[in-house]
């Protein structure tokens, strides 16, 4: 009896320690970024592009990278959704009976999911070289789209799997075509689609390796898809590698901006998920 109680206590403490480590490191990370970045945070950072000498501590901001990152992550997520929603529907609703095929596709996406983003970057770069593109916003969006498609497909596949088969039967037995049935299923999983968007956007906006060769970097805000675009992770990288204290501090301020963007997106999607869950029982 005492042994069982001791065991219970031991694992309880173990779980508590693990929880503390997780929460602790979260606050430590956010705290560090705030502490180091906040003093260098100002309106210029958000509203100006780098002026001459910005990288040696002179005036300017990182508006170019903020806009560039939003373009890349937003574009990639939208493009990714346009591709992965049909794929997820196809796997789940048009391939029944052909379990081998749908299972192989799932494995393929699992493999793609595990591929490091630098590989996508390199692949995107190869495509660009082949077609004679320069590093550009479009190149960045394409590489990041490749990166987020497996995330989107896997997430959508999972949420579609939670829809009871009887709901599909209900639509079909009213005389719906498969596509009409798919639309009912899509309505049912709307909160899940937002989760997928959030995961994808979060991954896209924070990834360096995939945009390293493909999007390039520029001090200007891109005005067309063919211009190179700055991204926040790269901007952070450049500034942090500077020996100038002022520039390093701005690096932390940039990290703070990136963190806040992700935070806002998370909260926003939570709100949207709640709003669209009203038909869920």
């Amino acid at each position: 009896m005492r042994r069982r109680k001791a065991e219970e206590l031991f694992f309880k403490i173990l779980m508590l320690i693990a929880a503390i480590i997780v929460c602790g490191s979260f606050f430590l990370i956010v705290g560090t970024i705030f502490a180091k970045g906040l003093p260098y945070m100002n309106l210029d950072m958000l509203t100006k592009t780098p002026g001459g000498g910005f990288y040696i501590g002179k005036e300017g901001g990182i508006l170019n990278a903020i806009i560039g990152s939003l373009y890349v992550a937003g574009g990639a997520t939208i493009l990714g959704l346009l591709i992965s929603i049909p794929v997820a529907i196809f796997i789940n609703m048009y391939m029944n009976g052909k379990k081998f095929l749908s299972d192989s596709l799932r494995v393929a996406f699992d493999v793609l999911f595990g591929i490091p983003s630098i590989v996508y970057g390199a692949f995107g770069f190869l495509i660009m070289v082949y077609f004679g593109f320069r590093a550009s916003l479009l190149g960045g969006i394409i590489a990041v789209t490749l990166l987020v498609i497996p995330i989107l497909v896997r997430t959508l596949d999972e949420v579609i799997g939670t829809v009871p088969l009887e709901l599909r039967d209900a639509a079909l037995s009213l005389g719906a075509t498969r596509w009409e049935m798919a639309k009912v299923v899509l309505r049912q999983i709307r909160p899940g689609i937002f989760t997928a968007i959030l995961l994808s956007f979060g991954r896209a906006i924070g990834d360096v390796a995939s945009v390293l060769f493909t999007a390039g970097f520029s001090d200007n805000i891109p005005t067309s898809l063919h211009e190179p675009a700055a991204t926040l992770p790269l901007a952070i990288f450049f500034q942090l590698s500077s020996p100038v204290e002022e520039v390093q501090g701005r690096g932390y301020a940039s990290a703070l901006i990136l963190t806040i963007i992700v935070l806002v997106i998370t909260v926003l999607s939570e709100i949207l998920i709640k709003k669209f869950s009203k038909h869920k029982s």
Partner: protein
Amino acid sequence: MTKTPHISVQHLNVHIGNQHILNDININIPDKKVTSIIGPSGCGKTTLLRSFNRLLDNTPGVSITGKVLVDGEDIYDPKAEVTHIRKKMGLLSQRPYPLPMSIYDNVAYGPRIHGIRKKQELDQLVEEQLKATGLWNEVKDRLNASATRLSIGQQQRLCLARGLAVSPEIILGDESTSALDPVSTSIIEDLFISLKEKYSIVLVTHILRQARRVSDYIVFVYGGKIIEFGPTEDVLLNPKEELTREYVKGYIS
């Protein structure tokens, strides 16, 4: 059974994988009557029901041979339009599965996909079917509320109204009351009895008392075969077959 049958099943065989689920089924489902399919779990009664509106097609690894004639047309004819066949039959499943939309849209969904767009026409249809299922007075003030807000019993009646809204000829019930409380169950049973004036009704049930209360005819299925088919009183009180007698008495379940 003087009238022509509504559904006529001829030499229907169903395999799923290498299992022989239904074995040479021959049966005529009478028009404008309630026919109950009874039998122990796993005997194939739900499979038989799902073969009527071709939902069975979607089961992985299924192969179907034989004929199912609805109004004299073979629904397994390769040229048959599957959406058209399904529209002829309303399905009421074990638990209610309302579509993720409002009460109104649930009923209007079927008519809409079949091309009815005029609001006036839809309004009328929705009201009609909600009245037919006795739901109108309970929901008329909140037609735009989510269907999931209703109680389970109300949801099941909504699903029935949704099915009726595409003007089917046949209602298929797959243990439609098994998730409901006794009060809701009896409402649904009464609905079945009143609806048989306009529709042919086929129910799958494992509740013998329910089969007795609502049905005119009973089909007893065992091991993928039809053992006995006849008027309710005959099958339940004077079964011809030994297996039916044992099942009705509760020896086999």
